[in-house]
């Protein structure tokens, strides 16, 4: 810990040596009596949010600051989320959120679930490029009443919309780093009379920062918008991604595992105002996902495993949204149909060879009722599932506004997550598909009333049961208790410098034995994330230093439980005054070359450096 503080202080002092300039009002604004420049020292970092859940939002501007390639790299910077290990950009990766496994977290892009039901219900956040992302909203904690299968939380990815004030705008970006890691991207966007378009395409490839971890991702995303006269909007989007990934390699175990994944989604979204404060929201979507996995002996090339998982899905959702900030109702129905198939050609086990169809029909109702400073937020959802029991989810939240910028929040929820619906865990030809349930309570406080610092504290307690565990010879359903706290802090900028910090403590145990759960299943017991940001609008410079320390529990002989990872990102506009200035950027990852991973054959990336340029026009 001392070493960590010393390193933090050292890097901060390096940054502090940078020149700092105060903003001055420009001639035009001051001549008119307008003083719009951000103050050199804002009294408060940000206003407090007013919702019952513990939500973190990250915007495209913040994503660009850290020169991220994929959503996994962005999530790693957020409090309460732990990526198992960041390897080469574009890798397959797993994560935990406040003690919940990533497969219990619903990941959505514009309302379309990305969780691969046939692949342990995991959404591959490492295979989602960030260029199309406008913002990511992370709901930490059970959110089934609003979202369905979301026992651990929701990662809601909102894609960019067409540039509203220009006929044509664009961006090109290229970066290159260690092990021929290259990221090429382009973007075009604009709006005409009623129509708008947004297009992006890119290629991310690397020879692999870790042995056997080469990646090659091609991605494209397009969106067409039509704006109605009354403010409604219809948007059609196509998302296509293909990745080839080296998953892992171990000389000790004499094996190499490679994979490929393809995602194709078409999505039609309608937002249409029907009356004052009454809006119809609807979407219809369809697509395919495919994942290939091939394991073989390193020395002989003998195949060990050769699987192909496929998923075709289609669905629709319609909701009526009525009300304002004080009293509102949202009522909706949704339908989802998924055909899942897995075929493994080497061992040909029945558990790994199946085709099945899943149908889900849902109805939900969520509301807000405010009396004075108290808001009550009830919610309920009914799901009818073709292969499993029909779950009912509830939530009851409350917020109390102590002041305009200090909020007490809390909620209790009963929710569920889909089990792994494959034939894994088959006993005597019988497959158990019990839903995984959660009972949770969260409470916290958020305040933007303290001068120069914004603070958010959250305490959580969750009981989960029917958690599938296939690590034992006989598959078993576990019951677990997870409780802990999260503290987030952010300072006001001082001479261009902003400090951020987040501390998480999670105590995850088996409910029956009281035994602490391994960090493989529940993430770190303790995690600390700190950041120093520097911005100078006049010189067009921005710098970000991020530190990430975590204490992992009971990893076994192949893991590395402790280690702090430091990343440094720098960007410099060549023409600071211009909106379309070319920008140079560089990133120095894992500065101190630390190790922290769960399995040594899937180690985190060592120290590596990349640099690039982007140009908006």
């Amino acid at each position, binding site marked *: 810990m001392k070493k960590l503080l010393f390193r933090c202080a050292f890097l901060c002092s390096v940054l502090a040596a940078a020149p700092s300039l105060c903003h001055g009002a*420009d*001639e*035009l*604004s001051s*001549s*008119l*009596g*307008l*003083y*719009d*420049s*951000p*103050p050199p020292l*804002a009294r*408060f*970092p*940000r*206003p407090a*949010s*007013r919702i019952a859940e513990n939500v973190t*939002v990250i*915007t495209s501007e913040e994503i660009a600051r850290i020169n991220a390639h994929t959503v996994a790299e962005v999530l790693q910077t957020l409090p309460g989320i732990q990526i198992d290990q960041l390897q080469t950009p574009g890798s397959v990766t797993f994560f935990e959120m406040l003690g919940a496994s990533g497969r219990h977290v619903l990941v959505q892009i514009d309302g379309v679930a990305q969780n691969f039901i046939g692949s342990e219900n995991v959404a591959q956040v490492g295979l989602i490029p960030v260029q199309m992302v*406008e*913002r990511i909203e992370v709901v930490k904690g059970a959110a089934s009443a609003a979202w369905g299968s979301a026992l651990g939380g929701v990662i809601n990815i909102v894609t960019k*919309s067409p540039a*509203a*004030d*220009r006929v044509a705008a664009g961006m090109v970006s290229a970066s290159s780093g260690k092990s021929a890691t290259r990221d090429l991207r382009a973007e075009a966007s604009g709006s005409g009379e*009623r129509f708008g378009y947004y297009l992006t395409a890119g290629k991310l490839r690397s020879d692999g920062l870790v042995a056997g971890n080469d990646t090659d991702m091609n991605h494209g995303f397009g969106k067409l918008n039509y*704006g109605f*006269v*009354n*403010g409604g*909007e219809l948007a059609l989007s196509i998302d296509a991604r293909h990745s080839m990934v080296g998953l892992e390699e171990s000389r000790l175990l004499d094996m190499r595992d490679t994979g490929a994944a393809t995602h194709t989604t078409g999505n039609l979204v309608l*937002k249409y*105002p029907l009356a*004052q*404060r009454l809006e119809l929201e609807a979407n219809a979507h369809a697509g395919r996902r495919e994942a290939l996995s091939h394991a073989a002996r390193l020395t002989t090339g003998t195949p060990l495993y050769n699987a192909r998982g496929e998923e075709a899905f289609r669905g629709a959702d319609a909701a009526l949204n009525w009300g*304002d*900030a*004080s*009293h*509102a109702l949202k009522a909706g129905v949704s339908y989802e149909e998924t055909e899942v198939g897995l075929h493994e050609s080497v061992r040909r086990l029945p558990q790994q060879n199946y085709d099945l169809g899943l149908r889900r029909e849902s109805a939900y*109702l969520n*509301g807000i*009722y*405010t*009396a*004075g400073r108290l808001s*009550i937020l*009830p919610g*309920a959802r009914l799901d009818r599932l073709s292969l499993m029991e029909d779950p009912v989810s*509830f939530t*009851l939240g409350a917020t109390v506004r102590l002041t305009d910028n200090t909020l007490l929040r809390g909620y*209790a929820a*009963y929710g569920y997550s889909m089990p792994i619906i494959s034939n894994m865990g088959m006993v005597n030809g019988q497959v158990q598909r019990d839903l995984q349930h959660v009972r949770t309570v969260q409470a916290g406080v958020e305040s*933007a009333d303290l001068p120069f610092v914004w603070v958010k504290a959250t305490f959580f307690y969750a009981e989960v049961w029917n958690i599938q565990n296939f690590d034992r010879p006989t598959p078993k359903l576990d019951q677990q208790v997870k409780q802990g706290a999260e503290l987030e802090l952010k300072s*006001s*900028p001082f001479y261009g410098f*902003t400090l951020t910090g987040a501390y998480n403590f999670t105590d995850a145990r088996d409910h029956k034995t009281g035994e602490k759960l391994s960090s493989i299943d529940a993430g770190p017991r303790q995690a600390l994330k700190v950041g120093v940001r520097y911005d100078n609008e006049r010189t067009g410079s921005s710098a970000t230093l991020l530190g990430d320390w975590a204490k992992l529990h009971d990893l076994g002989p192949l893991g590395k439980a402790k280690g702090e990872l430091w990343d440094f990102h720098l960007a410099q506009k060549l023409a600071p005054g211009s909106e379309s200035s070319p920008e140079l950027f560089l990133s120095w990852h894992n500065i101190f070359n630390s190790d922290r991973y769960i399995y040594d054959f899937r180690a985190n990336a060592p120290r590596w450096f990349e640099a690039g340029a982007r140009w908006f026009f």
Partner: protein
Amino acid sequence: MRAFALFLLLAFCLPPLPCAQGADLLILESSRSQIYSDALRGFRSECRSSEETVHLSDYAEVDVQRLVKEERPRVVVAVGDRALAASRKVREVPVVALLSLSLNRHAPDSVGGVAMTVPPREYLKLFHELGVKRVGVFYDPQKSGQYLKRAQQEARQEGVSLVAEPLRNPRDLQGKLARMKGEIDALWMLPDATVVTTVNMEALLLFSMTENVPAVSFASHYLKNGAAAALDIDPFDIGTQAGELACSLLKGGSQHVPVLDPRKAQLKINESVLRKLHLRVP
């Protein structure tokens, strides 16, 4: 579990207690300055509706998209440039901007308001009264191109000839200004951020004095430095206009927000400069 379900049912069937009202208007004020307060006084005199006000200068960062999602206003009112920039990604509700230099006619359908530049005809009327025929003006085609196009069309009707020089870089002004010697009878200063820098304003006013041509400005601030006349905007009236616009949006119908010219301009003059140049006092 049953108790929880019952509690939830009760929550949905709450009796009609006196419930709080959500705000119709989300007002984003760039800073706590007098000019914005004057404009908002005008706005509120015309549009009395429930509102939530956020002073952006109190905060280092404000995620307006999140605010709109949480506050669910029916109209966002952006006062000042910083507020308009922060609202540029808002799509769910119309945005009415005022006292923002970056509001132009390229704005998307849902963003509009009251511009800060007095309409060209007011300036042309002033040139006519001053008795000048050839008027030199610098402008950035990206920022003021559309305004200049309008000005040129109206100038022909008023019998005024505009000597318009496009300027894409503030540093180019000095050279282009030298070429205007003897070609113009008056200088017209537009509120264009590319043109208006401290160095350029000094150069323009120096040119006006040495070449004996009156400089007509967009702000009375320059009268003390040698400008002959200025057409000031009236923040209160701009607020009133924006209030009318916001009220019409609250009444429903089209969500298209037009960009309007300010309807009121206050003429301020520097008599000594006008006398020295032997020009008629308007």
